């Protein structure tokens, strides 16, 4: 009968089982304390009831020993929960290096996904099984939250910024995608289905769908079309820093601060180039591309910059 009344959703990703284990641990601790307290209330309330013959209250005002015990034990338990949960969370927050790179844009009230191979989908998502998939996500309007319960994962999608999420599906089937952050009228209809397929089915599905250029290809095309390479090259007279092989590395700014050359940095530098100028280069040379490039274009450029330098050494040797 538990099949009809499940207490947890299907476990369809690598992270699902560890999350459920932690959940069961917390449920067990909670149940223990809830039960302990209920039993103590019932026992004390009946054993020491005022209606018993000759009731008398004992003069007990406290016990430091007991206070220490019931401070230390819950503290120990919560520290276990904290450590366990934090390890899980950090694992979920750090993107696996050799994963399939999806991009995702949320808008009222739909999810727009692009596959590494260039296919686009709206609301629905097809992913191969046993393959880590990372999502670089942003929003065109308000905050949304990409939530797939069976994968036990969720991440807010914030306008003007990039957030990331990854999972590795472990179960074939079709599952729900929800928007978990309230986003307006049709918030409850901003849903979709994720279909987990075998590698062959996924490839068949890809070939059946209309193939666009991949984000990397689109990014490379834009990189050329926008003439980025004119300044951002490896020559000694280059007016901008060479971008090849830079993604994910630390760069030093004119202000002396250091930032990670990541999606947010790329986004900011394209729309607001003077915000964080790399040391040794003149600020204000680069024009803003605000209004010229769309959010999805920037996502493509990011996808390209991730591979740039690694796959096209001819375009410019890595900086150091």
């Amino acid at each position, binding site marked *: 009968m538990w099949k009809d009344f499940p207490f947890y959703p299907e476990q369809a990703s690598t992270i699902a089982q560890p999350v459920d284990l932690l959940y069961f641990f*917390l449920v067990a601790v909670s149940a223990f304390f809830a039960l302990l307290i209920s039993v103590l209330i019932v026992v004390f309330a009946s054993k020491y009831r005022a209606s018993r013959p000759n009731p008398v209250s*004992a003069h007990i005002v406290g016990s430091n020993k*007991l206070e220490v015990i019931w*401070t230390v034990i819950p503290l120990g338990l919560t520290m276990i*929960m904290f450590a366990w949960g934090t390890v899980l969370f950090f694992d979920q927050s750090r993107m696996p290096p050799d994963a399939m790179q999806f991009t995702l844009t949320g808008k009222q009230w739909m999810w727009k996904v692009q596959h590494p191979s260039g296919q686009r989908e709206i609301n629905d998502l097809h992913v191969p099984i046993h393959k880590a998939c990372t999502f670089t996500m942003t929003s065109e309007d308000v905050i949304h*939250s990409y939530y797939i319960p069976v994968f036990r994962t969720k991440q807010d999608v914030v306008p003007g910024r990039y957030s990331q999420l990854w999972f590795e599906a472990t179960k074939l089937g079709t599952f729900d995608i929800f928007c978990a952050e309230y986003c307006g009228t049709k918030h*409850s209809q901003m849903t979709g289905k994720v279909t987990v397929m075998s590698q062959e089915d996924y490839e068949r599905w890809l070939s059946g769908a209309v193939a666009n250029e991949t984000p990397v290809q689109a990014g490379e095309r834009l990189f050329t079309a926008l003439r980025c390479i004119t300044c951002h090259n490896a020559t000694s007279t280059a007016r901008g820093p060479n971008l090849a092989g830079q993604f994910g590395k630390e760069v030093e700014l004119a202000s002396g601060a250091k930032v990670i050359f990541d999606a947010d940095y790329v986004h900011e530098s394209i729309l607001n180039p003077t915000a964080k100028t790399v040391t040794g280069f003149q600020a204000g040379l680069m024009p803003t591309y605000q209004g010229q490039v769309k959010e999805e274009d920037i996502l493509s450029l990011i996808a390209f910059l991730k591979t740039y330098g690694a796959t096209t050494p001819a375009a410019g040797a890595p900086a150091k």
Partner: protein
Amino acid sequence: MKSTVLTPPAPAAHPPQIAKAKTNYLTADFGWKSWLFTVDHKRIAVLYLVSIMVFFLIGGTFAILMRGELLTPKGDLFDADTYNKLFTMHGVVMIFFFLIPSIPAVLGNFLVPIMIGTKDLAFPKINLLSWYIYLVGGGATLYVAISGGIDTGWTFYAPYSSTYANTNVAGAAIAVFVTGFSSILTGLNFIVTIHKMRAPGMTWFRMPLFLWAQYATSLIMIMGTPVLAITVLLLALERTFHIGIFDPALGGDPVLFQHLFWFYSHPAVYIMILPGMGVVSEIVACFSKKPMFGYHFIAFSSLAIAIFGFVVWGHHMFVSGQSAYAGFVFSFLTMLVAIPSAVKVFNWIATLYKGQVSLETPMLYALGFIGLFTIGGVTGLFLAVMGLDRHVHDTYFVVAHFHYVMVGGMVMAFMGGMHFWWSKMFGRMYPEAMAQFAAVVIFVGFNFTFFPQFILGYMGMPRRYHQYNVEFQTLNVLSSAGASILGMGFLMTIAYFVWSLKWGKPAPQNPFGAKGLEWERAPSPPPTYNFEEGDKIIVTEDAYAYTSEEPAVIAAHEVKK
């Protein structure tokens, strides 16, 4: 009638003590002016009681309508916009106009001066002003509800609220802004009163724990509320003039709004629960006829909660785009703030041990509070553990958790406190058997309503959903059914309370044999200046002196056996 027939009242004709005994704060003066311009803290408490009950009924109506909609997976009772307005208005009304002022402004206002043995709060006029500010804020909220409503959720997250919503966000922001000052003034009044107006002999560690809780609550009110005020003001400005402060197009960060919002709104959760803990401490000690176990620990845990409560707000934002390291810090501190709450629960239980426990209505509510708050508290840990929060954040699990704390905790404590001090406030007893029945109905209805939501949440149903998947229906129907039981319980309670005002048994000064100045020195109801004229309050014993040192030897002896 001829004026010559009238004779001026001759006070000398009556023996003075009888005349005095008959005049209490309710009968001291008559007419609407005597209420609207009163500076008597007890009358202001009654004004607050009436007004928060109005908002409680309004907020409750929104809740019942929502549960009606959620009976079926399809959105068939209301359209999506109406539903979104319903849950927003439910949240705004219940939080800002019921939960936050409930115990502080009603029971706190009534009891703080009496419990410390003084005539009034430090600033009586400011106290009245706070009620008027509350009314203005409440009126503005009702106006917003009628004129287009508001559909952002009570959290007002930008940029939806600042740019995209088509409802009266600016109006609601101003309403919340205004109401905040009512809360600030109440808190300020309590802090100063407790510091400066205690009767001779009423040292800090002789104060009833209710006062410690009120003091801690007041700290949060004056430290947190101003930040909310400026945040919603910025939101209203952004909304009206598009100044750009939370606008991502200009480089603004919507997550900043969340930081500023939760800087208040997380501690506000403690505004909503700490006074409840204070009430429960009073009730548990009285109905166990035993001194509070670990008095100092309960007192200091209130302060610890108030202070640590300010550095945990980021646990609402683990998946918001906040940095993982900030989440790490906030998660850790949240674990620490759980400890003082646990300490309180264990101390309450230990107080029952070897006492004389009687289960009158206030005690039923207090014991219900301890159980439900425990569940509400430990499920809070699920949300504070980052790895788990990624799954349960913004699902019905959250909804269930905070209703266990807010309704299972605060509302239970409020009900317990109202039953406990009802006789003191109005001089009449509530009907005991009926009240015990209603308490059980509320307890059962509450659990039916909110327990299924824990499962719904873990199954993945997001909150604020107008439509939902078919597989969630069973649990939702259960929840809606429970809500109707809960609603009946509340209506029953309100009905017999109103009934008792006229037909209830006249109350003795101390019907429960409780300790404390309000029971031992003040009549029911108290006169305008709280104590009989000429009754100089000098406190000589600790709070909850239900037992004396004498039987301690026996008790210690028994413990050893």
